């Protein structure tokens, strides 16, 4: 692994994002707007907003990063720039970490904004430390990045990459405990929910909403971190210097 190459890639991805105003708006404003919408929907019943708000702070960064990363990396694969980089002194992990670092930086800004507005303006009641809420949101966004990098290997076109969203992200949203609490799910679905990374991220957020203890949050974060590492490792295995 070469820190020089990782930094070069992260910097380049951020420069590309800076140029793309619409994507920037999507990245920074969309989560906040969606949470504001939810706050408005439940303006007659603040308790519901307090219950689902933290979960959404986990779901939105994950979903958006998944989408943005899978399309960006796919573009890199199809334009020939990835092949060019792989013919240069660049490690496979350098490539993935460069992307992960760039999107983690974006995720920090995105999450600080979303959490700040939820807690500061929309009066989201959070029992645990707000900074930890932000940490969970960032790790979660990085999870979206890692899975997005991985699935880009299995899509040939941007059209196919976008289809992975309903296939891989929506089931996680349905089973993460937002609609039916995870321990009330039918046994098979409960087991499935236990195997999905987003469940742990939402657990961590929900816990922070109602409790001041943090040990459970760190345990959930460790599981999400494990999925991130596994996603990056599998993603690295899909990068091939030699192709047919």
């Amino acid at each position, binding site marked *: 692994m070469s820190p*020089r190459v990782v930094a070069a890639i992260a910097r380049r991805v951020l420069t*590309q994002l800076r140029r793309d105003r619409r994507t920037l708006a999507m990245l920074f404003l969309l989560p906040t707007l969606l949470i504001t919408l939810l706050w408005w929907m439940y303006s007659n019943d603040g308790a519901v907003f307090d219950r689902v708000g933290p979960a959404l702070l986990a779901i939105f960064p994950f979903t958006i990063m998944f989408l943005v990363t899978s399309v960006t990396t796919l573009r890199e694969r199809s334009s020939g720039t990835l092949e060019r980089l792989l013919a240069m002194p660049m490690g496979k992990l350098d490539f993935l970490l460069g992307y992960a670092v760039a999107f983690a930086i974006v995720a920090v800004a995105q999450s600080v904004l979303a959490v700040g507005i939820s807690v500061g303006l929309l009066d989201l009641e959070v029992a645990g430390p707000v900074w930890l809420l932000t940490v969970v949101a960032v790790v979660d966004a990085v999870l979206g990045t890692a899975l997005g990098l991985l699935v880009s290997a299995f899509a040939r076109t941007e059209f196919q990459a976008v289809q992975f969203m309903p296939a891989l992200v929506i089931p996680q949203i349905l089973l993460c405990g937002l609609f039916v609490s995870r321990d009330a799910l039918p046994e098979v679905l409960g087991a499935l929910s236990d195997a999905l990374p987003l469940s742990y991220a939402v657990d961590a957020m929900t816990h922070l909403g109602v409790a001041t203890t943090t040990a459970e949050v760190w345990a959930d974060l460790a599981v999400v971190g494990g999925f991130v590492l596994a996603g990056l490792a599998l993603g690295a295995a899909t990068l091939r210097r*030699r192709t*047919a």
Partner: protein
Amino acid sequence: MMKSIVETRGLTVVRGHHPVLTDLDVSIGPGVTGLLGPSGCGKSTLLRSIVGVQRIEGGSVTVLAEPAGSAPLRRRVGYVTQAASVYDDLTVAENLRFFARVLGVPDIATEAARVLEAVDLGRQRDAVVGELSGGQRSRVSLAVALLGTPGLLVLDEPTVGLDPVLRRDLWALFHRLADDGTAVLVSSHVMDEAERCDRLLLMREGQILADDTPAAIKAGAGADDIETAFLMLVEGDGAVA
């Protein structure tokens, strides 16, 4: 015996159950070597094998005395694909800076200015690549390949769709690079570019029909131009060694 830069021995490549190259022995020396043949004859596959991005079925490819695609070669071989492999949403200068950082080139600003000068894109340095013409984009891609002064430059149809003035300038550049010690391997399906090469490999259906200087190939076939020589070699079915 000339010093060989690229050496393939028994190179066999299969793509989608069809053999593209079978047991191919090729030797490429310094100077500007043209790889000429019709579309689909296996030129790109051979170039990809030399760069080390092609999965090969059998045989060996040696480049600058190292196995093709091995780590030490990743700084020493420049490769330009048919598609301009650069970032459309970055400026010319940003593309060069990025690839120079990946390569670990010491003085990035000087090096970027040097390669921009070489491909005559100095005035476009702050233009976003996506807004350039097709010819300019492919020259940006070429400029990236020149970073760090590679020992071998592999170019897959770099002159397609360029205007004649630009084509002439690019060939002049290839010869300047060759004079400075970079071996240049250029593929083309346009036979009239053959005359501009120091040495030619004529290729058809995965086989090398001829490997010599343009003059020797024409003389050997008794033809006035390379296109006719190509036809005579195909129809006469006899390869000139």
